C-alpha cells in the first residue's frame, strides 16, 4: 500500500514570497490533515478535511495560509506571503476510521520550508 505522498520535500524561499505544498493521501482515506512542525516542537494541526469539506481550521492563520481539497482526494496548502516564522516542516496526514469515530493517522514525509 502506497503511503502519503508530499512534494516538494524541501523548499527555500525569501520572506514575502509565496509557496505551495501538495499532498496525496492514502487511497480511500477520507480525512486529511495539514500540520506545521517547528523544529523541536510537536506537530500543530493547521487544518482538517473530511472529503472536500473543512472540519477544523481554527489554528490556520487565514490571513496568509490557505488550503483546499477540491475533489476530496489530494490537497494543496499555500502560504502567501511567507514570514520568517513560517520556517518549519509541513506534514500531511490521512486517516481511516477504526470505528467509534476513532481515526489512526498516517503521516507523509513532510516538506521542509526555510524562509530567509
Amino acid at each position: 500500500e502506497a503511503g502519503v505522498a508530499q512534494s516538494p520535500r524541501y523548499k527555500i524561499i525569501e520572506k514575502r514570497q509565496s509557496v505551495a505544498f501538495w499532498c496525496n493521501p492514502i487511497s480511500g482515506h477520507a480525512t486529511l490533515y495539514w500540520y506545521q512542525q517547528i523544529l523541536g516542537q510537536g506537530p500543530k494541526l493547521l487544518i482538517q478535511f473530511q472529503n472536500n469539506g473543512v472540519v477544523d481550521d481554527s489554528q490556520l492563520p487565514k490571513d496568509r495560509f490557505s488550503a483546499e481539497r477540491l475533489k476530496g482526494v489530494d490537497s494543496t496548502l499555500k502560504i502567501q506571503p511567507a514570514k520568517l516564522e513560517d520556517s518549519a516542516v509541513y506534514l500531511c496526514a490521512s486517516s481511516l476510521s477504526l470505528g467509534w469515530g476513532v481515526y489512526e493517522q498516517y503521516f507523509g514525509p513532510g516538506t521542509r520550508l526555510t524562509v530567509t
Partner: protein
Amino acid sequence: ELKVEQNPLFLSMQEGKNYTIYCNYSTTSDRLYWYRQDPGKSLESLFVLLSNGAVKQEGRLMASLDTKARLSTLHITAAVHDLSATYFCAVESLYNNNDMRFGAGTRLTVKP
C-alpha cells in the same frame, strides 16, 4: 484549550535500563496516541489507546492510559540503541471537532 504536556523532554539512558515517559493532558479525552519520529523522518504510529485502563505492548514498549488522572505513560523495558528517537503523545479532544493536540515530544537517546 486542550494542553498536552510530556516529560521528560530529553532522556538519555543506558542500554538495558528501564524508564517511563509521561503524558499529561488538560481536558476530558479517552483517545490517546503515541508516535515515534526519527531524525529527519515523519511520524510513525506506535499505539492507539481508546479507553480508561487500556494497555498496549509492542516489543520493549508498553503504553497505558488513565483517563481519570488524564495521564498516559510509555514504558521502555531494557532499552536498546534502536529505540533512540523522539516520542510524541497526542490527545484527541472529544468536545472540539476531535481536535488533535501533540505534546512537545521526548527526545530519547539510548547509549551503549
